[in-house]
């Protein structure tokens, strides 16, 4: 049985490289068309080719999303696009159209067809039909408990992929058009306005039932499944999927690294203690931009797994810089500033092959080697003294 796959999202090629560097076995991304997350689809055709080559050199895979719910006009150019992706060596497509699943299998046998969560698959009989259609893998809907996933996996005729982290739709994926009605934006073709996260008053026969100062929201906490990774591995799930094609490089690095370490520890030791789980939970909190919970994995999604009073995702300001270069002889790192920090701040570095390490920022220069006491401009290049070895793409966050 091969090792479970860790599948990470990427909005652009820099983030794809970060994901692979930090331990993802595969990355999924969207091209400029045909992808559900329109604002997260920043891969030109050339970018896709480049990242496929990059990934394959590092034994990682690339999956491209072609997962919109197609209208007739949307199919324009699809044949040529799929031929191009096949030529590039893309490993799989994530698809919601049964016609396309079948088409890909017939014409591009070396490129897998993975069924998108948009088809809301929740049982082995549905998977059996999807296999008949030509699918190679099914991304399960998020509405399954861990017990249900075990049973599905046991009975499934195809490998299954399970979401383990990130944003959750309030409604069954692919079956929601609230955005269409409320904003004229098509939820199933990349335009979802997240109407579920807005605030609503509740009436019964014209009488207000809800609290006028605290209206209803259908918003969900993000999913965090670190406590279930062991169970998912034991259930022979094929792939663990992190949601977040809109997310920052910091988020991707921190989340991928944490799950990478967790998966490797489980394979090495067979089990992870509750202390270690607590450690991994705290590591994931460092990247959190919305409160998180276990979703449907632990059973029903009650009010503790819902989000009230908060609309959008928060942005962490703890992430302060990314390493560009490191001069080991002088212990000086050239870094790009992401958020404000000052001299005397305690900073923490993490990297794909390094555990978290803290240091006090006691020496800082600008690009012209003038001493400075603050770094307050994002994209500013700064040289700081880091008393241990670091490398390109290591990330730095503020501790205090």
């Amino acid at each position, binding site marked *: 049985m091969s090792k479970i796959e860790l599948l990470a999202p990427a909005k652009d090629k820099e983030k794809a490289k970060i994901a692979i560097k930090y331990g993802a076995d595969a990355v999924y991304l969207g091209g400029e068309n045909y992808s559900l997350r*329109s*604002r997260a689809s920043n891969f030109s055709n050339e970018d896709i080719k480049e990242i496929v080559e990059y990934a394959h050199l590092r034994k990682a895979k690339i999956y491209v999303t072609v997962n919109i*719910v*197609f*209208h*007739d006009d*949307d199919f324009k150019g699809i044949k040529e696009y799929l031929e191009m992706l096949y030529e590039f060596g893309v490993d799989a497509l994530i698809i919601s*159209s*049964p016609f*396309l699943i079948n088409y890909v299998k017939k014409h591009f046998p070396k490129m897998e067809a993975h069924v998108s969560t948009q088809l809301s*698959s*929740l*049982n*082995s*009989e*549905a998977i059996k*039909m999807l296999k008949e259609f030509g699918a190679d893998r099914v991304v399960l809907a998020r509405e399954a408990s861990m017990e*249900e996933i075990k*049973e*599905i996996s046991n*009975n499934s005729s195809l490998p299954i992929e399970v979401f383990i982290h990130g944003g959750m739709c*309030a*409604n*069954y994926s692919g*079956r*929601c*058009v*609230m955005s*269409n*009605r*409320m*904003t*004229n*934006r*098509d939820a*199933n*073709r*990349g*335009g979802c306005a997240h*109407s579920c996260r*807005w*605030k*609503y*008053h*509740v*009436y*019964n026969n014209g009488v207000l*039932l*809800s*609290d006028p100062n605290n209206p*209803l*929201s*259908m918003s*969900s906490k993000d999913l965090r499944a670190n406590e279930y990774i062991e169970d998912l591995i034991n259930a022979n799930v094929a792939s663990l999927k992190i949601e977040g094609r809109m997310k920052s490089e910091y988020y991707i690095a921190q989340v991928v690294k944490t799950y990478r370490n967790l998966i490797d520890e489980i394979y090495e030791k067979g089990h992870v203690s509750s202390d270690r789980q607590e450690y991994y939970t705290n590591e994931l909190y460092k990247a959190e931009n919305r409160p998180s919970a276990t979703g*449907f994995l632990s059973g029903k*999604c*009650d*009010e503790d797994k*819902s989000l*009230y009073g908060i609309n959008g995702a928060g942005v962490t300001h703890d992430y302060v810089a990314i390493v560009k270069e490191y001069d080991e002889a002088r212990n000086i790192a050239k870094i790009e500033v992401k958020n404000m920090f000052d001299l005397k701040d305690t900073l923490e570095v993490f990297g794909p092959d390094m555990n978290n390490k803290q240091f006090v920022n006691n020496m800082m220069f600008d690009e012209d080697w003038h001493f400075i006491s603050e770094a307050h401009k994002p994209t500013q290049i700064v040289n700081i003294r880091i008393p241990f070895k670091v490398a390109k793409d290591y990330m730095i966050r503020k501790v205090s």
Partner: protein
Amino acid sequence: MERLITLSSIRNLNKLSSSSCEGVIFGSNFSTRFNYSLNEFEDINEYCLKNKLKRYVNVDVFINERELTRLKNYLEYIKDKEFDGIYFSDLAVLSIAKELNIEDLLIYDPDTLMTNTLDISFYLKRGLGVVLARELEIRELLEVVKNNPMKLDLQVFGHLKMASSKREFLNNYFNYIGVPLNLKNMKTIRLVEENRNYELPIVEDKYGTRIYTDYCFVMYHELAYIKDYLKRLIIDDNFIKDFDVVLEVAKDIKRLSADNSEYLFKMFKNNHPYLQLSSAYLYQKITKKKEENV
């Protein structure tokens, strides 16, 4: 062309006859739309048989792994009752129906998804019926119907389902604010978004929550041109207080033509001024991406 009326309340059963419509849609197990007991289900079934009305059962829930055996038992029961059609949403129904050799009864209705000719043909070629997605624009609708004459179903009246969730939004919220309320199966609850003024019907039950359009979809003019190219027309009575309204729609559809559609629609509007009618997505300019909607 068959006119099918959904039966939300058994109180209205006696109003149905073969002169009012060709068939009835109802359900019991595995239906988010109907929750008749098995006894009521049997009563409706017998009434339809006696009155020569076709019977279509709604099996629209998402099926959990543990329910597959029970689903199979239910489909075997449906097979024994010789129903005329089964509306379904989860592909598990197709898989089991194949085993039972009743896939020719199946009509795929995932609410959305059936938005293009290729996917629709994919299912039609397998001998299934298909209900067109509710969010199609008129141009798309006409094209798809033209390319598949007498093969497709369409909801032509009623509130449209916008979202379906396994979560209990109402229960969760009222627990959160410390005011536990049991609002299950109530059809009178409405949501109003804080910056908008229209009321969205919301229904919560053992399967979760469903949210519908504030308006009642209607398409007299367009239907005049395409009704004879459609296989089944679904007239949905969900949230319609007066069942006579759906009977009137069914009656109008039968005599609808290009010459009289405007008149009939005007009369219908005058008869029911309280109904918030809309052509829904037919003429709505829907953008695909956030950037387009400036």
